[in-house]
Structure formats: C-alpha cells, structure tokens
C-alpha cells in the first residue's frame, strides 16, 4: 500500500502505544459524529485507514472493545428516549431509532471492515454490524418495560384492525422486522416479544367471536364470516407479519374457526348440512367444503353426513308405500335422488373422489335393500315401452335409458334384474305391445356394453325368434295359399315338401282355408315360459296346428314343436240373437266357447274333461266369460266360486255396442315375489353359474386351495351377483360328489381338478 502525504504516517515496524491511542481517539470522535448525524464532514478513506492500521498493528482488541463501548453508550441514550415515549408514539419512536441505528451501523461497519475481516474472524468475535444489532436488542428492546409496552401496543393495533379500524401497516411491519433483525436473523426475540402473545391473543379473540357469532347466526352466515376473516388474516399476514408466523397463524385460525365447530356446523338441525342438502344450497355447501378442506379431518363428518342423508332418503323411497304400487314413480324418485346429490358432488365438492364414493355407497345400500329395485327398474322400462313413445324425442329416450343404466350399475344382484327383464320382454313381444323395436334394441345394446354379451344373448335370441317367426309365417301362408288354389299338375311339386299325401294336403288346406293361423315359434332356452300340459284344441284349430307343425318339421327336421296353449289369442265369429259378433279371446276361452257348437249348456266337470285345461286356469277363464259385465256365458249359480256341478250356458242374448269385442281376462293371482328374497329361478341359475365358474377356475389351475378358489370364483361372479362363501362351498361339495373335483390326499385344504 503506497503511503501518501497524510497525517497518519506509519512505520512498518509497528505502532507505538501512544500513537495507537491517538488514532483510536480520532476514530472515536468520528464515530461520535456519525452517531450525531454529522457524518458528512468525515473522510471515509482516512477512517478506514486508521482502523486498518490499528488492526494491522495488533490493536484490534482495543478497536473492537472500544467500539462496543461506544455503541453501548449511545444506545443507552436511545433507550432513555424510547422508555420515555408515550404509547401513542412508541412505535414511531422505536422504528425511528432503529432506522437511525441501522444507518449508523452500516457506516461504522464500512469503516471497520478490515477489522471485521481479519481481527473478528481470527478472534471469532461477532462482526461489528451484527454486534450493533445485538446491542440494540439488549439495551433497547429488552430494556425493562420496553418490550412489554411494545408488545401491548402492537397487539392493540392488531385488535383494532380486526375490529375494522385502519392502522399503519408499514409501521407495524418495520417494527416487527426490527424484532427479527435485532436477534441477528433468528426469531427468538420476535417470538418472545411478539409472536407467542400474538398467537394467544388471536386464539382468544376468535374463540370469543366465533362462539358469539355461531350462537346467534345460521350456519351459512357463519361460513361467510369465517371466509371473510380468513381472507383478512391472510392479507394482514402478508402485509406485516413475519413469514414464519404465517403457518402458525393459519393453524390457530383453522382450529378456532373451523375445526372446533365443524361437527356442530354439520349437525346443526336448522341450518346445518342436512338442511343445506335438502334446500339444494350448492353455493353454501361449496363454501363449507372449501373451508373444511383446510382441515381435512373435518371433511370426515361432512362426508358422513352426506352418506347418512343419502341412505335415509333412499330408504324412505324404498319403503314408501306409494312407490310400492308405482314402479315408475319409484325409479323416478331414485333418479332424482341420485341427480340431486350428484350435482352436489360435482359443483360443491369439486368432484372429490371420496365424496363421490360415499354417494355411490349410499345409493348402493338402499337400492339393494331388497330385490324390488331390480323388479321396478324392469317395470319402468316395460311401462315406457308399452305406453308408447309419442312426443318424446330421441334424445329424451336416450337420456332415460342412460338413467336406467346408471341405476342398473348400482344393483348387486344383476341377474335378478335379468330375470325380470326377460319376463317383461317376453310379455311385450308376445302381445305385440312394444312401441319401438329400435328402443328395445338400444336398451339391450346398453346392457350388453355394461355386462358382456352373455348377459344379453338370450334377450337377443328372443328378438331373433320373433323375426324368424315372421318369415316362417310368410312361407307358410304362401305355401298354404298355393295348395288351396292348386291344380293337379302343380300339386306334386308343392306337396313333396310335406309328408302328407296329395289328397290329404289339399283337403286340409281347403278345410282350413277360412281359418287364419298365425304362429310364433319360440326357442325354448330363450323364453321364460313354463311348460303346460296340452289342452284339447277344437277341431279347426287342431287341423291348422297340425298342418303348420308338419310344414315346420319338414323345414327343420330334428326339432320338436310343443304348443303353448296357455298363451295366444283367438278371434271367434259368434252368432248371437242380435247378430254376429267377433270376440277376441284367449286360447283356452276359444276351447271353451267352441264347445258350444255342440251344446248349449255344460257343467264345469264336463268342460274340464273335454278341454283338459288345468283347473285354476279353467276357472279364471270361465269366470272372465261369465263375468256380470261380460256375460258371454251364463253361470248357474251366479257365484264367484266354482264347483264341479255348476253349469255354464251360452248366452244367446249377449249384446255389445262394438262388433269386435275384446274379452278382458281376470288377472291371475300374481305370484307373490317376496321383496327380500331372490326368486327361485334365479337361485337355480346361480347354482349352475357358480358351478361352471368353479370348474373353469379349477380346470385352468389344476390344483388350488379352498380360500383361493372361493376368492377367484367370487371375483368372476361379482359383476353379476353376490353370493356368500357358504353357497360356493355347497357347490364345491356337490362337485366333489359328482367327481369333478377331489380333495388332495395330503392337504385337506387343497382341491385337485379331475379331468
């Protein structure tokens, strides 16, 4: 370093003590000037060099300690000022002094930088700037009552601001950052002087406020207030609180405002969760969800409330007596229930998965409470298709089908639904009541997409049967027509297709020429139709039937035709005293009425023997004909019950306004479907499916232990229906008996597949 003309010459060999002291004295004066704010007259270089030379010549200690003493003196003066300051201006004063001090310290640090870098480092002393801070802490902040007063002023400010007053946020911010800085960038002082009390204060404040508010206001209002308060606090924290306080403050707020009252808010009867759900207050619920999300554990009680309400609502729908009678209403209500809560899930709960699952569980619970849901769902579709789809757009239809599918997915015993659907579909197809084949097919397509083609194979089979029957009928009619109009030359070519002699064929055709026959051929496996004993058909019908049977058998050898006499209708032209009428009746009724070509009066026993119709059905059909409103037959005695000797006479005096009369059939005593029980036919089907599944699994695994086998089978079947493990066990036993499986000789828990 080059020397120049300066009053501070030094020699390389050292500094004499008195020289050092002089230099120090000069420095001290300079520092004092800095304190007094008159630093502009000083020359930085000189001061720097002074301190440099002192340190260089091993006088660092003197320099350091001296500086410390100086600063301390100064700060004592400062603290007197601070202590004397009244409350209203305390913050101002403190911050002022602090800012001054900082400026001073910077200057001093610059001057003494060499000391910092060498002496302080070597001697491991706190650098001068930081020392300045610490000194400020000790002598000003921690001075007796200063900290306490400071605290109280700060808290008062915040309290006021919370009550809506405006406070000087910059001042507060500076004060608080002072507290942080003053501990050399750790937060102990800040926490001790301010933060701890602040948090306590906050907690008490809100504990009080919330309690007051909640007891006098509704839940939605409370939620609004909480939202507001939280926003405020966040703003405040950002504006002047130290960053480290933010999380702690949030925790306190969440606890005092939300967590503490969560259960109460949800459970409040007048305005809590349940009323909000019922009133469709989506916005309120959204707010509640947003707030509760801050404290995730509180979401549990909200979710539980949703689940409980869904179940309750649903159970009421299921138990509602009105719905028992009206399937459409039932389904509609279920759909509404689902839609309602679904909109909450989407709009208020932000599609939260756990809430969606709670809704799903709740719906599943009550839909599966008893097997009526499956039945009614099928009836809903049945009614929709029977009543006609006039005035309903394609989109609407699509929507309805979609709705039905969404409920279908919640069914646990899907095969019960399949059973009912089969029955209803059969009814619709056979009586020609289906309004639209397209819609029917669309429904089946949806079921197929959901459950696989096995589920719908029989339903589709039913449709095919109907179409095929139409084709067969066309051929038959053509063939018969040809026979009737045949000339002998063309006879042989036509008749060779049938196993009748030429003459018989023509005779039969001519004889039945004025009897129109319409046949629907059903494949046995597809249709849920019980087997009934054959009844005795009247002669013309019998001939027609035989003719058709022969025709069909020739086209499809190897098949067996059985006439389902418990179904079907007939149109009879009847002679009455007042003229002819056409009666549309059931097959059995046709048998009965045709008897009256041979006589006027018959007893019940005679009718039964002659027609071979099962008793219960015979009674039903006779009563329909003899019904007082209909009176095609006259019953003696005219009672509802029938005994063997009661007689039925043809009523020549029968009249009706219409020419073509449809005779209404008394409905059969409906087979009581126990709502809770699964229909027997379904249980039988299940047995077979379970066994098939067991065999499938065992065939591929060759050997498997019991619990795994049961688990695999359950997995395979769970999409169709649910069964208990005990049910599967019984099937396993049955298969062991029939030697499809065996128990392993060494491990009784293991099963082996027997090819």
């Amino acid at each position: 370093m080059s020397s120049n003309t300066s009053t501070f010459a030094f020699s390389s060999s050292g500094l004499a003590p008195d020289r050092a002291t002089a230099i120090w004295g000069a420095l001290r004066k300079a520092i004092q000037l800095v304190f007094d704010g008159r630093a502009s007259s000083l020359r930085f270089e000189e001061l720097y060099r002074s301190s440099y030379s002192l340190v260089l010549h091993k006088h660092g200690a003197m320099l350091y300690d001296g500086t410390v003493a100086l600063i301390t003196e100064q700060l004592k003066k400062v603290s007197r000022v601070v202590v004397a300051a009244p409350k209203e201006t305390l913050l101002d004063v403190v911050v002022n002094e602090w800012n001054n001090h900082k400026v001073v310290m910077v200057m001093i640090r610059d001057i003494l930088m060499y000391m910092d870098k060498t002496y302080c480092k070597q001697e491991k002393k706190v650098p001068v700037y930081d020392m300045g801070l610490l000194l400020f802490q000790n002598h000003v902040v921690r001075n007796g009552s200063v900290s306490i007063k400071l605290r109280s002023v700060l808290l008062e400010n915040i309290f006021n601001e919370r009550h809506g007053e405006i406070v000087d946020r910059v001042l507060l911010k500076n004060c608080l950052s002072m507290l942080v800085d003053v501990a050399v960038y750790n937060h102990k002082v800040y926490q001790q002087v301010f933060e701890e009390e602040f948090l306590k204060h906050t907690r008490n404040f809100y504990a009080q406020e919330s309690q007051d508010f909640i007891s006098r206001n509704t839940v939605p209002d409370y939620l609004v207030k909480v939202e507001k308060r939280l926003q405020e606090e966040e703003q405040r924290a950002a504006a002047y609180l130290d960053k480290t306080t933010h999380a702690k403050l949030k925790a306190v707020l969440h606890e005092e405002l939300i967590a503490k009252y969560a259960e109460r808010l949800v459970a409040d009867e007048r305005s809590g969760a349940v009323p909000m759900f019922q009133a469709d207050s989506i916005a309120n619920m959204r707010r509640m969800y947003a707030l509760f999300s801050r404290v995730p554990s509180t979401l549990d009680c909200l979710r539980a409330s949703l689940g409980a309400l869904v179940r309750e609502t649903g159970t009421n729908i299921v138990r509602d007596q009105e719905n028992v009678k009206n399937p459409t209403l039932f389904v509609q209500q279920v759909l509404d229930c689902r839609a309602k809560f679904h909109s909450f899930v989407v709009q208020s709960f932000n599609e939260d998965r756990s809430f969606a699952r709670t809704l799903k569980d709740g719906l599943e619970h009550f839909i599966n409470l008893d097997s009526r849901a499956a039945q009614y769902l099928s009836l809903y579709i049945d009614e929709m298709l029977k009543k006609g789809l006039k005035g309903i757009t394609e989109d609407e239809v699509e929507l309805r089908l979609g709705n039905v599918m969404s409920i279908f997915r919640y069914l646990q015993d899907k095969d019960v639904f399949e059973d009912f659907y089969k029955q209803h579909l059969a009814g619709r197809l056979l009586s020609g009541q289906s309004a639209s084949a397209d819609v029917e097919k669309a429904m089946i397509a949806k079921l197929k997409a959901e459950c696989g083609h096995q589920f719908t194979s029989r339903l589709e089979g039913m449709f095919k049967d109907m179409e095929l029957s139409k084709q067969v009928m066309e051929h038959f009619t053509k063939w018969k027509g040809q026979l009737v109009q045949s000339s002998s030359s063309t006879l042989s070519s036509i008749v060779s297709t049938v196993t009748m002699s030429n003459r018989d064929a023509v005779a039969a055709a001519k004889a039945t020429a004025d009897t129109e026959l319409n046949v629907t051929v059903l494949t046995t496996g597809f249709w849920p139709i019980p087997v009934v004993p054959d009844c005795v058909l009247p002669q013309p019908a019998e001939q027609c039937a035989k003719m058709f049977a022969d025709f069909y058998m020739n086209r499809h050898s190897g098949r067996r035709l059985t006439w389902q006499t418990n179904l079907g209708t007939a149109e009879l032209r009847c002679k009455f005293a007042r003229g002819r009428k056409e009666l549309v009746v059931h097959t059995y009724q046709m048998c009965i009425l045709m008897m009256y070509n041979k006589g006027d009066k018959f007893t019940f026993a005679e009718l039964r023997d002659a027609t071979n119709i099962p008793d219960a059905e015979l009674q039903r059909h006779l009563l329909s004909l003899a019904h007082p409103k209909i009176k095609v037959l006259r019953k003696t005695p005219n009672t509802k019950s029938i005994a063997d000797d009661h007689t039925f006479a043809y009523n020549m005096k029968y009249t009706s306004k219409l020419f073509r009369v449809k005779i209404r059939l008394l409905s059969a005593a409906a087979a009581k479907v126990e709502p809770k029980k699964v229909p027997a036919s379904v249980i039988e089907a299940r047995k077979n499916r379970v066994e098939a599944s067991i065999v499938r699994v065992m065939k591929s695994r060759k050997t498997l232990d019991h619990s795994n086998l049961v688990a695999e089978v359950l997995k395979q079947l769970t999409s169709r229906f649910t069964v208990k493990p005990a049910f599967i066990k019984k099937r396993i036993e049955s298969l062991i008996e029939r030697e499809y499986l065996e128990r392993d000789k060494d491990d009784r828990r293991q099963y082996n597949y027997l090819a």
Partner: protein
Amino acid sequence: KTSIHGFSPMPKKKSTGKPKPKPKGKAAKRTSSSSRSSPAKQVKRSDLDTSFDRWKAKGIEDGAADDQDTLQGGAFIALCEDLDIDVEDVALLVLAWKLQACHMQFTREDWSRVTTLGVSTVSDLKGQMDGLRRQLEQESTFTEVYNWVYHFARERPECKILDLETAVGYWQLLLKGRWNLLDEWCNWIQTEWKKAVTADVWKQLLVFTRLKGGLKSYDPCGSWPTVVDEFVEWHEAKQAKDAK
C-alpha cells in the same frame, strides 16, 4: 333291536372254547383262489372254504339271495359265532378291511384274502381277533379302516351315498371313546340335518374329530364340508344358550 348291520342277531351262544368240528366229507370247492395255493396247504385251506360254504348256506336260510357266491345277512351271524365275536365287534370291520370287502358282503374272492392274516383255519382266525382289535390303536390303520367302512356299509353298490341311520350306527361303533362330541353329533345330524352322508363328509368327519385345539380353532371359512360348519354353529349357539 336291529344291529347296525341291519339284521337281527341270533341269541348269543356262550363260547365253549371247543372248535367247531370240521365237517368231513365235504369236498373243498375248487375256486380260483385255492387253485393259486401251494399244494401243501391245499388240504387245510378247505377248512376256510368249507366254513365259507357253511356260512353262506346259513345266510341263504335266513333269506339272502342264493345267486351270488357271497356271505351276506344271516351268514355273518354264523361267521361271528364261529369266531366267537359279537356281531357289532369292530374286529369284524377290521376283517372286512383286510379282506377289502364291500357292500356288506364277503365274496369268495374277498374271503380268499384271509390268508394274508397268516391263518389257515377258522380257529386260527378266531385267535387273531384280539390282534385285529389292537391294530386300531395305530392312528393310520384306524384311519384306513374308518374310511373303508364307508365302502363296506353301503349295501347297494349303485347307491353312492350312505343312509343316515347306518352312518350314525357305524359312527357310534367306531368313534366311541375317541371323540367327546360323538353323541351330540349323532343327535344333531339326525334331528337337524337329516340328509344322507357322502363319502367326503364321512372322511372329513374323522379329520374333524382329530382337530387339535377343539372347536375354538375351527375355521368356518376353511374347506370343511358345510354340514360340519352347521354343526359347529349349532354347537356354539347351544353353548351360548346354556351359559346363560
């Protein structure tokens, strides 16, 4: 009281200790089994053969069908008399197992296996009865005999399951003293379950009686037959009720 074998026992004769006199003059019937014997034993074998004939005749007297070369029905009574054992002695079942006899009858072929016991006369066989009984003390032998009884006890070969009454009778015979729940089981299965017994159930029951730790270690989700599950359920319910 009819025995488990389904026929009424003749009044028990006191054992005199004298062996039955060998019928003289009856030619030994040449059967396939005796044709396999070594010449030295030929004469003595005929004692077993002739006894077989004698018992068979007794059986036919008692009403058994005479078109088959087997011992059935009343023949057993005569057999047991000669062997000086009770008709319901387990030794008979062990013997049946040794002979691999099924369907409540000893065919002549079955009978020919009696030589595996190391006997050549009926009196020899009589002396073996105790030995047969003692064989049951070995667990593995007992298991085999027990399992075999299922085949033996089914009178009609075409019927694959054992009727309940017979099953209960044999259970009482075989498991007496070996299972503390025997009486409860027999009672319960006759009053509550009432169905015939399959081979699987028969076999698994023995395993069940040997279940270590008793009913407390019973696993209802295990691979036990459902009848056992139901029994355990009933038993537990009864115990709960009795405890009150």
